[in-house]
């Protein structure tokens, strides 16, 4: 069933259909949220909030863009709002240890270096300004085009280019320090 059909059904009064939308996009929202704020304690809370906000915004959504882009936009706004509220940046200890892939192929020393690099990068991403972090995460982690990012962030293409450029520059600077 297409997103549009489901949304139309929900707006026609069959609100139970909304569960299909939540089921379809919840993991995507969680992954994006995780990359944006990294706080695993808030991931489900943020995901829930995103879908509640989407529900209230559905009557205004006219399918000018994809529903997924609209959901990304709401996610970015909700994460940004919650980060500001909590005044908390990403720190390494807020991340869950990932199950390391190919750990048997790396020796212990390489593994330590690798983990340190990842932690350093997460921290640096957490220190970026909201807009820079959002643009960088969507471009690098979600493989969005500049145009898609401009749609999600509701800004110009040139601003997206500038944000990503500055984000990378700031990351490189912080990692070198």
């Amino acid at each position: 069933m297409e997103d549009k059909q489901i949304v139309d059904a929900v707006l026609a009064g069959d609100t139970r259909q909304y569960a299909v939308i939540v089921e379809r996009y919840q993991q995507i929202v969680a992954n994006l949220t995780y990359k944006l704020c990294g706080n695993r304690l808030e991931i489900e809370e943020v995901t829930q909030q995103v879908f509640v906000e989407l529900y209230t915004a559905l009557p205004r959504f006219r399918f000018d863009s994809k529903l997924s882009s609209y959901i990304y936009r709401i996610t970015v706004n909700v994460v940004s709002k919650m980060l500001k509220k909590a005044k908390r940046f990403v720190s390494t200890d807020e991340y869950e240890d990932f199950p390391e892939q190919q750990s048997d192929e790396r020796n212990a020393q390489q593994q330590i270096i690798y983990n340190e690099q990842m932690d350093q990068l997460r921290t640096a991403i957490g220190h970026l300004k909201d807009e820079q972090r959002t643009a960088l995460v969507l471009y690098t982690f979600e493989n969005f085009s500049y145009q898609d990012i401009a749609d999600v962030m509701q800004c110009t293409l040139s601003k997206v280019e500038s944000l990503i450029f500055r984000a990378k520059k700031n990351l490189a600077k912080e990692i070198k320090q």
Partner: protein
Amino acid sequence: MTLEQTLEQLSQQEYPRKVDVVDRVMAQVQQKPYLRPVRRTVNWRPISIAAAAAVVALFIVNITIFRPSTLSNEDMGLAISQFNDYSSWNTVEEAAANPYEYLYEDDEEENL
């Protein structure tokens, strides 16, 4: 490892847990009646634009047709009195029958 490579590595990592917020979202959405969306039947945007245009048009017509007079109070009084004079003529025929009365009425008054 370069920055690009490190970013690429990080991009491969996803939230390690399976998220399931369906029940929580549905409970929250259905418990709050004010969150229930209203079925969209009317697109108000073109209607509101047309209404705004109509208001502007009416305003322009209003100030064009009913613009305030530039006559002073004295001029306005004179105009009204002249109108009253001419309106005292009963008929065109009456005026035609006594042309001199009307033509020289003012002169006679002046001569007196």
